[in-house]
């Protein structure tokens, strides 16, 4: 069990000296939001001090001071996480990268961009577009930092075609727990050069080091795109349609799943009922939104024709086309509003983002809905049908918080067991934080969990980096 020191006035002075008066905060100067991420239900923990860093050198100096004094350091980006990953469980220092938000340079010959970790996903995406390039990973939360995306290996909607954040990180600068600065990876397309510490850093949630710069891979931006909404009578027929799209070699960019409940919430929330609740006089049970990209309209039309034939065979209620810029805007605004729409009409909320083999989606959804009903908890869900990643929300407006937590724990325990049974994983893209550590341990087994801990100890022998997360069970929270 690690033991930590408090930030004494002397240590505070040393830290302040690194960044200056204006970027160092103690007590009530600290942004109260630093005590939580977007899931305050996992507990709020205030740090003793916070610092806005701007350079690798500053981070290095801060880590030297903190490791010498055994001060816990929790790295934070935009705070949009959903598993308590950036919450300072052991107090200490929050190191915030929001001011490290510069896009440093593009290398147009190798199609890469060098950026700082605090660049927001939406800013990188928009800036790359002005260079005719696309940053393929497309997690739903556009105001997350790219540093945060790397630390959680965020996925998003386009993973079906392009893969996840991991696939687009080529190199990075990392500050280790003791303040040493290392470079991992190179701007090359392949590597077969020893253990990939680069890939170990990706998804490590700030427990192994602090990422202070990175080189990201970009691709030429597709010339045109079109989406289709395919509504079905029920969830089963809807999900069974997904592998057919892939098998038909239609190469979709994304396949998003939405059931009737979430469509209703979203329409109420955005005020724009772009996704129909009834089609050809039948209630829609669930729909998928499929997106194709291509180099010209003819190519896309051919895909649409094929999709139409498949949909007919699968007894889809209809195939609706999202082709105009205003419809695209409305459709993606609606799709992006799902989580906020749930949050808007829900007082208590907890979530899971399991990933199961695509064909197991209906089984899992039916199971979790039954669990919700059994326990008096409203279940809302949506997700990436194309890759089996489901976002499932347990919601309540009338329960007391303690009772809610008690019931949700019953549901979660059973649901993760079911997920394991279906050969799924604990988290598809939100990661572990402290909220899901027990389920990770269950899922991977003691041997693997222990190995993770041993790796952690190599990088961070004093356990000062983001204590209590991923595989560090020494903190009892």
């Amino acid at each position, binding site marked *: 069990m690690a033991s930590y020191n408090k930030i004494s006035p002397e240590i505070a002075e040393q830290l302040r000296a690194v960044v200056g008066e204006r970027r160092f905060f103690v007590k009530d100067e600290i*942004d109260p939001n630093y005590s939580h991420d977007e899931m305050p239900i996992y507990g709020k923990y205030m740090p003793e001090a916070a610092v806005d860093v701007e350079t690798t050198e500053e981070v290095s100096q801060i880590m030297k001071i903190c490791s010498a004094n055994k001060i816990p350091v929790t790295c934070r980006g935009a705070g949009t996480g959903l598993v308590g990953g950036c919450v300072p469980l052991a107090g200490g220092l929050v190191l915030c990268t929001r001011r490290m938000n510069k896009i440093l340079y593009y290398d147009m010959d190798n199609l890469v961009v060098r950026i700082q970790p605090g660049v927001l996903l939406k800013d990188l995406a928009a800036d790359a577009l002005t260079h005719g390039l696309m940053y393929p990973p497309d997690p739903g939360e556009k105001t997350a930092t790219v540093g945060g995306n790397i630390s959680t290996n965020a996925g998003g909607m386009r993973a079906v075609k392009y893969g996840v954040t991991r696939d687009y990180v080529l190199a990075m600068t990392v500050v280790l727990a003791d303040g040493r600065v290392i470079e991992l990876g190179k701007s090359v397309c392949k590597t077969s050069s020893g253990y990939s510490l680069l890939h170990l850093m990706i998804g490590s949630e700030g427990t192994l080091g602090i990422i202070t710069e990175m080189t990201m891979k970009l691709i030429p931006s597709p010339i045109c795109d079109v989406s289709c909404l395919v509504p079905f009578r029920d969830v089963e027929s809807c999900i069974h349609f997904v592998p057919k799209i892939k098998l038909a070699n239609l190469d979709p960019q994304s396949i998003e799943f939405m059931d009737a409940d979430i469509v209703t919430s979203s329409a109420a*929330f955005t005020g724009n009922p772009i996704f129909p609740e009834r089609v050809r006089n039948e209630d829609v049970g669930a729909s998928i939104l499929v997106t194709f990209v291509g180099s010209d309209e003819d190519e896309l039309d051919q895909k649409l024709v094929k999709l139409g034939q498949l949909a007919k065979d699968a007894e889809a209620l209809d195939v609706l086309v999202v082709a105009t810029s205003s419809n695209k805007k409305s459709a993606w605004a609606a799709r*992006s*509003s799902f989580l*906020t729409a749930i949050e*808007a009409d829900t007082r208590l909320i907890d979530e899971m983002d399991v990933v199961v083999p695509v064909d197991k989606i209906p089984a899992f959804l039916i199971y979790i809905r039954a669990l919700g009903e059994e326990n008096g908890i409203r279940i809302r869900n949506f997700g990436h049908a194309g890759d089996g990643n489901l976002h499932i929300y347990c919601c309540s407006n009338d329960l007391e918080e303690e009772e809610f937590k008690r019931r949700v724990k019953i549901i979660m325990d059973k649901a993760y067991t079911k997920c394991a049974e279906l050969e799924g994983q604990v988290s598809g893209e939100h990661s572990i934080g402290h909220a899901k550590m027990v389920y990770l341990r269950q899922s991977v087994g003691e041997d693997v969990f222990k190995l993770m801990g041993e790796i952690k100890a190599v990088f961070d022998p004093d356990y000062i980096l983001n204590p209590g997360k991923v595989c560090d069970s020494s903190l009892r929270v």
Partner: protein
Amino acid sequence: MQKSDYKNMWVYIEHDGKTAAPVGLELCCELRKLCDRTGDKLFAVILDALPETELDRVKDCGVDGIVQVRGTGYETFNTDAWANAFTVLSRKYHPSAIFVGGTINGRDFAPRFAVQLDTGCTSDAMELDWDPETGDIQFIEPAVGGKIMAVITVPVLRPQVGTIRPGTFKYAPAGRKAQIEQIEERIDFDPEKIRCRHVDFIPDESDPELDIAHADCIVCVGNGLKDAEHLERYRRLAKLLGGKLGCTRPLYDRGILPYKLQIGQSGVMVKTKLYISFGVSGAVNHTAGVDAEVFVAVDKNPDAQIFNYCDYGIVGDMDQVCDEMIRQIEARQK
């Protein structure tokens, strides 16, 4: 007829039989100034009876005359009788210009009689000027989402027809003229020929939160707002300040807030003591709708046009600044 043969400017006084809508009086006040330059006489045009006290308010705006129309067809607003009345009057008296308040009904019938008279019509001018060389009124208005100001004229045809939004000009009566010409006209419109008839009226339930025109303090949220989820803090700040929440057009277009909270030329014109904007870029169409004693602007873009209209500005993340304001105000109140 030459265009110089057309003389005098007219203002339509919209009323509901009890009170005159403010926009007609505002237009009289503004056009008084213009007529003083052009040498035209200013006439108020009233369809159907208006109580004496209200008529006095019209006279106080410095009009040179009143055209009072009576007849059949004016019980409730209808486009046919209204447009007809102006066409008949205009053919008889040849006014140089006719101004109509840009209310829903004003915008409904004015362009219509302009076609009957085969003349040019403009809407939503924010400023009126006059070119002595051509004798044309210059209708100056924002265009293309407020990116430019356009000068619009009616160079050949007469009368020059303009609808002007309520609240564009100030109600500042110039005082009553010693002589006020009174013209009485009877124009009957056969009620059988009214093609669109009033059947029923259902008043909106009054929601005080939606009545922002005269709130003491307004917290206005613009397109910088990420999504509806982030809105609550602004509501809270407005409440703490004893004020109301408002928004700019994009938030209405995005379906986040209702039309009645849209501040600006095409929405509500507000008069307030303290106005705080968050994430508002500052398009002319919006700022034209704000009359504030103290104007505070918060936006992350230091070059945003809104900072040209504010008394005090803070460059920063709108949500963070709002949260900090809430914190400091709550701390004071404790």
